[in-house]
């Protein structure tokens, strides 16, 4: 299998779907002539032409609303947000129109819309460019939210998202775009709502999504090496639908759970998962479910501080050892 980047995997997934289905188009700022702000769409203008790869003005509410209207008519638009932070200027279109029209029409309409772009901190772009709104969006019934953590998932999930007949929002990560791995050239899809166990373990469960999966795996290595703790790492992949089964099974198996995410803590995805585990695995837990989220302030610019603010192995490790004491020492 060819080794390609996360960025290329996204592009491949979209290109395959665009070849399959002429109703798929891409709209966004700088997606065409500029080749994409993060080069995800590089080369696609050449292949698919300006009718399908559409450079927009800086009018997120406008072009996403336009995409919703077009989606109602059977098109399958993919909107690129340069950052998910900019979803806030289009929030009404994104959560109200996209999520509610099907319901308010009694099911007469459906909206096969994909919105994608990066949602992460860690590169010093500051408080206005570092939002991770997966919790805000997954709050709305009618929407689906996925956060691929690696290249092969990126391809499989974006293809599913494009074929899905409901709005699916994909949160990527600028720090993952360059990460490489083997990605099949086959026409494969990954179901939404299916988590992946990235590492098996019996002592402790870490639940994570997106970049936090990587940080959690690094931590799991340390936990094994330095503390004799065997950690199971669950990559959610999809926030809504959510693979509650896998989560709860792992929680019951290990009895100890840490949730890692870049979300701000108050009503973050971790809060929802913690609630469900405490409910569904009540009596099975040997320690309270703990979270490692972004430290609860707006994203700080300063590099070394931002690195502390986001969940990294040192903070994750500390919390894991609270939940599951070291077996060595």
């Amino acid at each position, binding site marked *: 299998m060819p080794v390609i980047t996360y960025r290329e995997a996204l592009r491949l997934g979209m290109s395959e779907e665009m070849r399959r289905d002429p109703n798929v188009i891409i709209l966004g700022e700088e997606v065409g002539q500029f080749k994409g702000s993060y080069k995800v769409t590089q080369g696609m203008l050449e292949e698919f032409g300006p009718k399908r790869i559409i450079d927009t003005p800086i009018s997120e509410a*406008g072009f996403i609303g336009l*995409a919703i*209207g077009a989606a109602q008519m059977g098109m399958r638009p993919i909107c690129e947000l340069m950052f998910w932070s900019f979803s806030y200027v289009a929030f009404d279109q994104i959560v109200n*129109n996209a999520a509610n029209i099907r319901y308010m*029409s*009694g099911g007469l309409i459906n909206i096969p819309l994909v919105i994608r772009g990066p949602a992460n901190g860690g590169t010093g772009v500051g408080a206005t460019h570092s939002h991770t709104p997966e919790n805000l969006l997954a709050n709305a019934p009618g929407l689906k939210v996925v956060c691929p953590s690696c290249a092969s998932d990126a391809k499989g999930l974006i293809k599913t998202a494009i074929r*899905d007949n409901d709005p699916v929002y994909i949160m990527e990560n600028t720090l993952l775009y360059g990460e490489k791995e083997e990605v099949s050239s086959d026409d494969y899809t990954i*179901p*939404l709502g299916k988590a992946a166990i990235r590492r098996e373990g019996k002592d402790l469960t870490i639940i994570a999504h997106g970049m936090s999966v990587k940080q959690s795996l690094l931590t799991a290595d340390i936990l094994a090496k330095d503390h004799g703790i065997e950690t199971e790492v669950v990559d959610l992949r999809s926030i809504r639908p959510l693979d509650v089964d896998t989560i709860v099974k792992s929680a019951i198996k290990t009895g100890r759970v840490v949730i890692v995410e870049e979300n701000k803590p108050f009503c973050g995805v971790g809060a929802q998962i913690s609630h469900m585990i405490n409910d569904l695995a009540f009596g099975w837990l040997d320690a309270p479910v703990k979270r490692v989220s972004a430290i609860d302030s707006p994203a700080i610019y300063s590099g070394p501080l931002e690195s502390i603010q986001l969940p990294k192995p040192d903070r994750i490790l500390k919390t894991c050892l609270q939940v599951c004491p070291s077996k060595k020492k």
Partner: protein
Amino acid sequence: MSKKKTINESNKPCLAELDHRACADAPVNKAMTKEQKLHLLRQMVRIRRFEERSQKSYVGGNIKGFLHLYIGQEAVAVGSISVLGENDHTITAYRDHGHALMSGMGMNECMAELYGKWTGCSKGKGGSMHYFAPDKRYWGGHGIVGGQTPLGAGIAFAVKYQGKKGCCLCYMGDGAVNQGPFHEILNMASLWDIPVIFIIENNFYSMGTSVTRSSAFPEVLAKRAEGYNMAWDVCNGHIVNEVRDCVEKAVKRAHEESKPTLLEIQTYRYRGHSVADPDDTYRTKEEIEKFRTSRDPITLYLKLLLEDNVITQAEYETMDQAAKDEAEASVQFAEQSPYPPEESILQDVYWEEDNRNEKTTSQGVIFFE
């Protein structure tokens, strides 16, 4: 753009003399058959009787939430939608009963929707503000002011993308022109030659705010189009023939040049913003009364059709009674219909959940407790 003489540029509700024969001889109107003319009149009457009847039910406590009546504005929806062809679409805001009925929706499903019944056009899930009929190319019914305007452009975009000669009429109120997304989509519509026709139904008030208290603009609101290099026009919405003439030109521009237009159609609502609006702070009873008596769209068109011997007074009364009966029957229908079953609360949220099959690639939990 040409501006017609009947147009009011003072941007106060204006009672200058109107000519009910205006545009009667415009080609688009001259070409109508007798049945087509009667159709226009009948639709205006049906809308009015439907709404009057719904108001009665609302006051009687049978309808919940908001009820925004279109009474007084009927010529706008009726005139504009009457010039559309099979690839043309419409979308509007929450004052949507007129557009829905004129698009071909039935009184029964519309009234049942107001009653929140399972037989309603949206199964009782949408209510007054959210009527939809995609099969009639009618895309709602939208509650967030201005929120439907990018959708309208998107519909027209799809029509063009799919290689059809069509357009989308996208209606909004005078108060909606100051919502950001409308501005964004005006720019895009012009930039990309999208065959969308934005129709500002200027009834001179957004709730209790007169247009001059909410908007800074040159002579007319529609002139803002010039900032986007977009064609625009203004017409009088009390005269259905004038609406038809004006909209038909814009539709031609959309069909033949794939160009957008911003239209302003000046009109007036007789009722409060919604049925619950006390309507006593921003205009006088006399103002309403004068509009009702001097420029009612039904009266004006009836006068024309009587003069032209298209209809007799007796025939009109039969038509009117039929509309009343139809509205009354729709209330019966609504009242006798069941409420949606409890399990329907979680239906129509996701297409993929409503249509689970072997191809469904969604797993896990999608509804939470």
